[in-house]
Every structure is written in C-alpha cells, then in structure tokens.
C-alpha cells in the first residue's frame, strides 16, 4: 500500500514521457508508483489499503449547494453457500466492476512465509480447471477486461472489470479463477521467481520500500509488521502445498464478499450470480482475529543504508487508529490540516517555506486493528536533519496550539468539496460497499459525513490530537546514504538499528534456517 499517494497528489509534477506503470511488477502488491495526474491517479488512490484510509477519512457531501451526497442504493443478500453478494446498479457507462473481497489477508501469512496471501491471489488466474494461464489471459484480453488480484494486511481481493455486453464471459472468468484454480507447479515457480525479483527491484527505489521497512520497524513481529509482498527469504520458502492450503482454508464462500457495481439489470444479474457462484461448495471458515496493537512507548531509529542515494527518504510516527475508530472523522479533519493536503502545516513548512522537499504528507492507514500513522517525506542528504527537525517542530506546534476555527472551516470545506469524485465510478463504489461491509461500517459513512465533519470543534480537535497524534514516542525509519547522514540523525533516538538495503528482508532481519 502506498503511503506516497498523498505526496503525489499534492505535488506538481513533471510529466515525463514514459509510463512509470511500465515498471510495476505484476505479482507483487508492493506500493504502486504513480503514473500521472489524471484519471489514473484518481483510480489508483482507491486501491486496496488506501481505500480504507481515504474512505474512513473522507466521506462527504456536496458542500455549499446544500445538497447532501448519498450512497447510491444497493442491496445485500446471502447465497445458500454463505457467499455475501452486494449489488449496486449504476447506469450511464457500459461497464461492470466486480470486487471480491476475501476476508483473509497478509496478516494471516505464517511467520517466515510472508507473501503467501499475495502469491495465492496472484496465482488464481495462472491455471484453472478450464483454462491454462495463457488461455485465461487470452480470454480476458479479448474482451478488453482488467483483472487485479492482491493481498493487503487485512484482506485479499480480486477486482475485475468488463463491458456490460461481456457480462457472461467476464463472470465466467472470475468464477473460474475464484472457484477452480489449480496452481500448476510451473506457474507457482514462475510467479515466485518474479515476486522475488520484484522485491529486489523495488529496493532500487527507496520510495517503493520505505513503507515495508516502516511497518516492520513499527510493529516488529506483529502480523502488521510483515511485508505483504514477502521478502527475498520468505518467498524462497513458499511451496505449492502452502498455497493450496491457504486457498482451501480461506477462499470459501462464507469468507467472501462479492460486490458488483455498474450497468446491469438487477434481476438478471442476481440470476447470473446464482448460476455462476451458487455452485461454490460451502465450507466452514475460521478467521483468526488480528492480535491487538499498541503504540510504541519509546524512541527508536532504523537507518537503511543505500550508498548511492543523493536524497534521504524518511518516515516517522507511531501506531495510529483502527478503521472503525469513533474519532475517525475528526482525525481526518485534523490530519487534513496537519499533513493531508497541499496547504497543510507540514507542506507549508517543508516545501513551500523552506524548499526542503518536493512533498511531505501525514497519513493514518486505518485497519482492522490500529494501523500505522506516519509522516513521510524526502530531502537531499545535506538537509536530512533540518527537514526532520522541522517536521518535529510542526508536530509539536500541533500539540501546543491545536487548530484554529479558521483552519477547521477550510479543512471541512476542502474535505466536502473533494469527496464527490471518490464515488464517481462503479469501480470505486464496488470497493467501497465491500470494504464497509468488511469493516462493519454503514452507509452513514457517506450519508452522515457532512454532518460529522461539520460537528468537529477546536475542542474536539484538541482531544483528538492528544489522543491520536504521537508526541514524544516516535519511530524513525530512514533510507539514505548512511556515511553522510548517519551522524546527524543519531540525536533522534538512543535506540538505533542499521541495515544495508542490499541485505535480504526488511525488519526484523529474516531468521536464517
């Protein structure tokens, strides 16, 4: 999941003539890199992981006109085999998006086999009872469809999109992948080898791996500390049997939410879904609860050495909030002011006034259990300590001074004004209704958003800052040229750790077997 989306959206960019997407590594749901500012950016923001955050924290209505935005009508029902279906008809563009949320994610990876959920998701299309991997690709591409399968910390997901006229074929492909994957050994080997090189390649770009080091250093051996895409050691330990077992245990109708949104006739779609998914054999499922997480109660610093870096990439923060935290809307409002938009306190200080960086943002990644909060930025080697000092000053100022009425007014208006494009497409809506269902949230996330945003006062903001924004105890992770920046950053924590980016794994270092 990308911590960087915020930065990208805020930054003005040079659009170079290449598509960065070209370097993305298909099987590994590593943080995605942004391509450009247009639709692609908007769409990608709503990927798994980010989805939760943005939705938690951004739910709104249509501001000044006084006309409140509502969640479009949708229905929910459960098939006999336990599969939950969510249907949302949205007419105007002849596309259908199907989003299957499997309620088990990377947090369920066995220790030492990190990446298992991700690899399992990636292999769904790589050979089924009816199709070879190559035939699946040919059939999907022939209808101009898209198919993305990945695993975040809390859940796995498959998102497929096709034209309305191809509904029959599209649903056939999806059910083939979900119900009948065969995990051919040669495809398992291929994908694991690609995922392994995917991790190596990601380490050539600090931006792509900062999140994995940060999560690891913040959470240690807690499942949220595991790299969802695996690492150079864990990916070599994963065997086909483990993939099969993960699939059989978790890809069970009662463990899946199937959201379908787009242009279709409801009655016809219900019948099609019954025909296609009704035959999925019911099995019992037991999901382990995510162990509780708690903020770190000391300071510590991890310096990851990348000897050729001319710029330091840093993250600092602590454990944040759960997706259903009752303070989530107030936190969104405060974080908008602090580090969630271009005129945020952080960006004003680190970019606009000092020129230390092209972008800085702060971010609550809200999950089933409290997920990470972090401030993220990058700056040239010489200004590493000054930039971090400044970020810390801005954080201290937030605690000392809170936020003003005027800042609140601006942030509320911003949040409400920017929300509607988040529920513009069927793709976005399918993910939203599935994730609300998963996290136990209601349509009030959207229907009551305006009222909830407007209800935030400076006093509530103050309480939320004290409770949820870390002050003294901070975890620091830096990727940069250790020989140049090391001495200057020692002051941030007594407890310090160091790794070379070329060493396998993230944090903690993988155990040798």
């Amino acid at each position, binding site marked *: 999941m990308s911590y960087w989306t915020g930065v990208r959206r805020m930054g*003005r960019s040079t659009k170079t003539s290449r598509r960065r997407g070209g370097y993305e590594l298909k099987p590994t749901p590593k943080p995605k890199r942004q391509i450009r500012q247009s639709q692609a950016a908007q769409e990608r923001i709503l990927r798994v992981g980010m989805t939760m955050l943005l939705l938690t924290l951004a739910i709104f209505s249509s501001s000044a006109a006084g006309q409140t935005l509502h969640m479009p009508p949708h229905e929910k029902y459960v098939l006999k085999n336990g599969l939950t279906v969510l249907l949302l008809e949205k007419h105007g563009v002849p596309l259908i998006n199907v989003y299957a949320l499997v309620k088990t994610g990377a947090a369920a990876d066995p220790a030492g086999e990190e990446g298992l959920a991700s690899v399992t998701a990636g292999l769904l299309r790589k050979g089924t009872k009816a199709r070879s991997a190559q035939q699946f690709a040919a059939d*999907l591409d022939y209808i101009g469809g898209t198919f993305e399968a990945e695993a975040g910390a809390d859940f796995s997901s498959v998102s497929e999109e096709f034209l309305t006229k191809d509904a029959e074929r599209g649903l056939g492909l999806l059910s083939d992948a979900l119900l009948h994957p065969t995990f051919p050994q040669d495809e398992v080997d291929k994908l694991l080898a*690609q995922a392994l090189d995917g991790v190596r390649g990601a380490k050539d770009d600090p931006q792509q791996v900062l999140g994995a080091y940060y999560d690891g250093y913040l959470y240690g051996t807690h499942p949220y500390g595991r790299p969802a895409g695996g690492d150079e050691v864990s990916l070599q330990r994963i065997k086909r049997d483990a993939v099969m077992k993960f699939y059989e245990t978790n890809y069970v109708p009662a463990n899946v939410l199937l959201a379908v949104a787009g242009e279709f006739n409801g009655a016809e779609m219900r019948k099609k879904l019954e025909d296609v998914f009704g035959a999925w054999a019911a099995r019992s499922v037991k999901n382990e609860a995510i162990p509780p997480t708690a903020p770190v109660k000391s300071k510590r610093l991890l310096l990851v050495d990348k000897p050729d870096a001319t*710029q330091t990439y840093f993250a600092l923060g602590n454990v944040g909030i759960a997706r259903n935290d009752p303070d989530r809307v107030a936190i969104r409002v405060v974080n908008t002011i602090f580090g969630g938009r271009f005129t945020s306190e952080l960006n004003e200080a680190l970019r606009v006034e000092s020129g230390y960086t092209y972008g800085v943002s702060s971010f609550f990644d809200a999950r089933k259990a409290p997920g990470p909060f972090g401030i993220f930025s*990058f700056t040239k080697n010489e200004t590493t300590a000054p930039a971090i000092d400044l970020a810390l000053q801005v954080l201290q100022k937030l605690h000392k001074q809170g936020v003003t009425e005027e800042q609140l007014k601006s942030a509320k208006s911003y949040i*409400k004004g920017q929300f509607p494009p988040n529920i513009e497409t069927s793709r976005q809506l399918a993910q939203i209704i599935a994730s609300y269902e998963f996290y136990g949230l209601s349509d009030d996330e959207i229907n009551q958003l305006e009222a909830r945003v407007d209800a935030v006062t400076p006093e509530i903001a103050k309480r939320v800052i004290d409770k949820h924004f870390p002050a003294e105890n901070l975890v620091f992770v830096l990727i940069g040229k250790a020989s140049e920046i090391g001495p200057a950053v020692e002051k941030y924590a007594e407890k310090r750790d160091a790794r070379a980016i070329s060493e396998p794994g993230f944090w903690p270092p993988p155990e040798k077997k």
Partner: protein
Amino acid sequence: MNMTTRLTSRVALLLVVLVLLGAPVWGQAEFPVATKTLKNGMKVLVQTDHSIPNVALYIFYRIGSRNEGPGTTGLSHFFEHMMFNGAKKYGPGDLDKVMEANGGANNAYTTKDVTVYQDWFPRSALPLIYDIEADRIQNLSFDPAKIKSEREVVASERRLRTDNDNGGLLDEQLWATAYIAHPYQWPVVGWMSDIEHWTMEQLKHHFEMGYSPNNATMVVAGDVSPEEIFALCEKYIEPIPTHAPPSPVVTVEPEQLGERRVVVHKPSQLPLVLVAYHVPQTNSPDYYALNVLRTILFQGESSRMYQRLVDKDQIALDVSSSVEPAFDPTIVEVVAQPKQGVDSQKCEKAMYEEFENAKNATVSDTELEKAKNIRLAEFYREMRTINGRANTIGTYEVFFGDYKKLFDAANNYSAVTKADVQRVAKTYFGANNRTVSTLIPDNAEEKGKP
C-alpha cells in the same frame, strides 16, 4: 455551439454506446461539447455532466520543454511551479489557501510540448476559480525569495524522479541519445546545472512568450452549463490581452541512420533496458495502426511480448511500451525489466525477434479484434469521470487539432487492417531507427572485470 440536448452526458454516452455496440457506425458516437473562441483567441470547450456536483477545469498552454534551449532547460516546468507562487490579487501562498478553503484542489503538469493546469472543485467555487486563473495568467509576480525556495523544490523533484530512479535516469539518457538536433533531446525537468542557474530575466521572458491567451485552450467538464462558463470567460478571461506566442520550432530531427546505444553503470539490484523507435507526431495517419500494433505486442498478459519474455523465456519481469502526445515526430518507448542476473541483451534479442515476426507475417484476426476491443474498453474508462473527459477532450483538441477527432477514434481503430499493422511494423521498428539505453548494475560489472 452544440447544446441540443438536456440529457446528461452520461445518458448521452449510453446512447453512443448502444450505437457503438449495435453496429459498425462507430463514427456517429458523440456527446455534446459546446465551444467558443474568445476575442483574445483562447478556445473554450464545455462538457456538461450533472452526475456529481463538481467541476474539472483544464488549461492547456502550448509551451513545453521543446520551446527551451541549452542553459534554460526545465524552465517551462519551473514556470509551472511559479504559477502557484503569487500574482497581484492572490499573493504568495494565497492561491492554494483560498482554493482549498473553498473546497478546491489543483495540480499541473509539464511535458515536452505543453504545460497543463488542472483545477478540481465543487461548482460553488466557480467564480473564484476564474478570478484566480485570470489573476495569474496576466499578473504573475516574480518574488526572488519564492524563486529561491522553489528552485530547491524542483531540484528535489529531479532527485526523486530522475537521479534516484533508475527508470527516470534511463529515460533521460534515451531521449538525449535518440535526438541529436530537435529540442526533445533534453529532459522536461531540466539538467541539474540549469535548474541551479535560471535567471529572473529568463523566467519573465518565458512568461511573456508562453502565456498568451491565444496560445491556450480551456476545457471545463462537470456540473456547469456552457452559458455560465462562457459568461465567466467573457468577464474574467476575455479582457486579457494577446501577445506573440512562442516562435515555431523549426528544427527537424534528421533521419536516424543506425542504432545508437547508451550505457549507465550504477549500483542496482536489477538491470533495466529501454528502447526507442522514432515515429511520426500524434496527428499522423499512422497513429491508430501504431497503437493497434503496440496493443497486440505489449498490452495484457496475452500480448506477444509478455508471452515471449515473461511467460515463455522467463527472462523479464515486465515489458511494456508507451508513446505520449507530441506536436513533432516523437518516439515509441519500450521498457523491459530483466530478471536479476539476466543480460539485458537477451531481452533485446527476444524483443527484436518479435518485431521481426510482426513484419514477416500479418497478425491474426483474433489479435486484431482483441486490440480493437481493448481500445474500446479503454475509451470508456477514460471517459467515465469528469476529470478523464476534460483531459481527453483537451488532448484531442490540442494534439489532433480538433476535439471531434475523439469521436472518430473508434471508427479510425475499426478501419485498421492487418496489412496496416504489418506496414507500420516494417516502417518504424527497424534496427537503424532504434536507440537503446541500458542500466548495468555496478556489482555485475565488477564481476566481469579481470
């Protein structure tokens, strides 16, 4: 001006779709776009859509890094940043503060050809956005302190996207090698030494040159009516005086007569290889056949290159191609990400063989049909948001010379034949027309030394 329907564009789009899916008359597909050319020469295009209470506003200025020269590379992009740093009515920092306080957000991007400004806002902010845009187009201020700090920001952007990013670094080397005469040879962000040395005079000159209203196109999509937009334009934009646009770029890149190669040695876990082929500018008739060829070769896991390099030979993690809108003859870029330890020339060889296959025999009917289906589905994906529509309408208007070409696209793709695909493969994808940019990991290099 076309305002013949009160249907929302979404509904109109549906009608279009029915036409598209039902019959070969793709060319009929249209949704209403109202247009008006202001007295100062700026063309305004409006696409009404009431599905969400928001607006996307794009302004395309026909100035980019192709209008720069040695010593001033990156100036267009730097200027793009300065357009947010204060004018007469909205001083330094005011633009962003006022816009965000009213529910709006903005961004901008610069390419080799254009500089594009984007505003996304609730319709309640409409007059304000026009006030802001008019202010900065005519009254930009050049505060030396802002220039100093913004220079640092751009340097940080360059370190992020180029210096510490292998793909960015190779891309820069590729263009610098593929072009020896034409200004596409330097990077949009600029060489670091130029970033450090631009002067106030150069900045002012650039503003005068590029930011004349008759050098710009405005596109508005969303919860608006053409009447209200045109009225706002008459009030805020039309009074802005016209001046001389940038001088034409006269340099023509001479034909490439043999392969060019550039090598980068750098500490890195994986190698990387980019290959460029010169192709005509965007408004060339070959545009559609080239896209069909690229789709067949590169798009999706069933594409020929993916099947060959990633699936069968298993020498690459990914292979893709791209081409961006361009006023002048440009390049198709191909990127292969070799696996660790794989000699990137192995990837090159496999790709060249696939290009040869596309020259030696026509593609199959199924492949051709697949490519057209993919292009059609992508069209809908682009057009389903107000933001996507504003960007696409503007891109067609600016680079194809007429937004209506957008509605011909499906027809133009439909008309591409297997022979066309074979012809463009033969015409453009030869060894003499290619430039190769390779990253060789330092560690691998050391092993090879005696």
